[in-house]
């Protein structure tokens, strides 16, 4: 895991930069895939919208997010959308929380889970896309989804 270097508010310079100007914020009308994930402890929530290419290459043509959460959550989700936009779903699924953290110049230990949240949001949206298309769902996506359902139940009362 990339160690955090510079800190303001306990965050790296890059996190702050992304936080100031987050990218790909918003919603997509009639998305091809949609994911909503939350963290049961901190109550932070992300919704992820995908537009997937119709050319058989499963390329992420457009991606939008909304995040209710801390700087870690906002910057993780923003940078992730930038990292995967234009990639194929296969490549996008290979992006890990560590990639996100590295790109952000590190995250405080207590905030590592924020990057997990963003990666999970993407997986959840891809799960939704596969589901709609009636595709076979890879085991790890299935697991993320199951976990997410549990969490969402438990945080229902939070909002």
């Amino acid at each position, binding site marked *: 895991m990339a160690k955090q270097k510079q800190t303001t*508010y306990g965050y790296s310079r890059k996190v702050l930069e992304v936080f100031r100007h987050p990218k790909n914020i918003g919603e997509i009308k009639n998305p091809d895939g949609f994911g909503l994930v939350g963290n049961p402890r901190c109550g932070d929530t992300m919704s992820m919208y995908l537009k997937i290419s119709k050319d058989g290459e499963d390329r992420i043509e457009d991606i939008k997010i909304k*995040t209710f959460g801390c700087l870690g959550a906002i910057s993780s989700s923003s940078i992730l959308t930038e990292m995967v936009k234009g990639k194929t779903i296969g490549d996008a699924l290979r992006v890990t929380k560590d990639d996100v953290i590295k790109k952000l110049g590190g995250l405080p230990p207590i905030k590592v889970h924020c990057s997990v949240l963003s990666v999970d949001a993407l997986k959840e949206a891809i799960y939704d896309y596969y589901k709609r298309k009636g595709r076979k769902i890879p085991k790890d996506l299935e697991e993320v989804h199951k976990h997410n359902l549990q969490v969402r139940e438990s945080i229902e009362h939070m909002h």
Partner: protein
Amino acid sequence: MKRIYMDHAATTPVDARVAAAMKPFLSQRFGNASSLHTFGQEAKEALEESRAAVARAIGAAPDEIIFTSGGTESDNMALKGSLKRGDHLITSAIEHHAVLHTAQYLEPQGVQVTYLPVDRFGLIDPADVEAAIKPNTKLVSIMHVNNEIGAIEPVAEIGVICRRRGVLFHTDAVQGFGKLPIDVRKMNIDMLSASAHKLCGPKGVGLLYIRNGIKLAPLMHGGGHERGRRSGTENVAGIVGFAKAMELAVKDMKKENAGMKTLSEKLVKRVLAIPDSHLNGHPQTSRLRGRPAKRLACINNFRFAGIEGESLVIHLDMQGVAASTGSACSSRSLEPSHVLTAIGLKHADAHGSLRLSLGRGNTAADVDYVAKVLPGIVENLRRISPLAKGK
């Protein structure tokens, strides 16, 4: 960029007059108050004058005051020093962590603890205190003013109940000290904690008032300072600063409170003009038709639907405004504020709180500036939030 400080409930700058009072005790008058020689005697004299001054300000006798390293130590000492296995403690769900975590530490040691609930304004019902008293109840510890939402607890009423029922009464007065009049005799307070850095005094100095006749087990053993009740070389400069800060606060209490009330009203009105915004805490900040104030005017706590507090605070800071979400000490924790949860807020709402706490240095222009930048920040954060309504 002009920087506006609106986090006075977290800490305050040392008043220039306080710093000036402290200075000689760092350099020429640096003696150890336990030393027999003139340097020591000078220090001792300053120490005892400070003790007499703060005692006078709260209606106590000088030998009822011991100086500590801060509010946390005072709270720890009041609880740990008076409770033993089998005793029952009554406290509230909205105490500062210095009381709450100490109570939680005592539970596995065999101390029973009742955490009283509060109403939606954070107020404790004295009748609940009375109802919770059991034969083994030793201590009631209820804070004077809550640090997050400014609730002013009915300390005098609780004092009467405790005295009548023969139960010790401690109050964590860290936030109200120097802002609201306190008379430990009239209010039937047996122990009281305070901390200098909340009233323009230095950090690292506090006090515990202990009514004559109450014997507490010491937290710190050693040279027998503070008449054996708190060992450790006295922080004379800090203590002198504390006394000076208290003197200034008491002298100008009426005037400062009036000023705070005016600023606070303006601030609340402007902030609540933001759509879907709410005040966490009681609207009544002064005596009304004979009924006492319910909230300290300088502590203003808001929430904005769909918005998370850390992001809000950092955006404000980027625009030059220092504020806080939850209490300062839990700003690095993931849990939502226990105070906001206790007044019935949902998790997300509790996470989205903003505390703007006013102090001596704040002006109407500061309030105007905050009122100007805040709506835009809220709007921006709502734009990226999946929880925000509309849009």
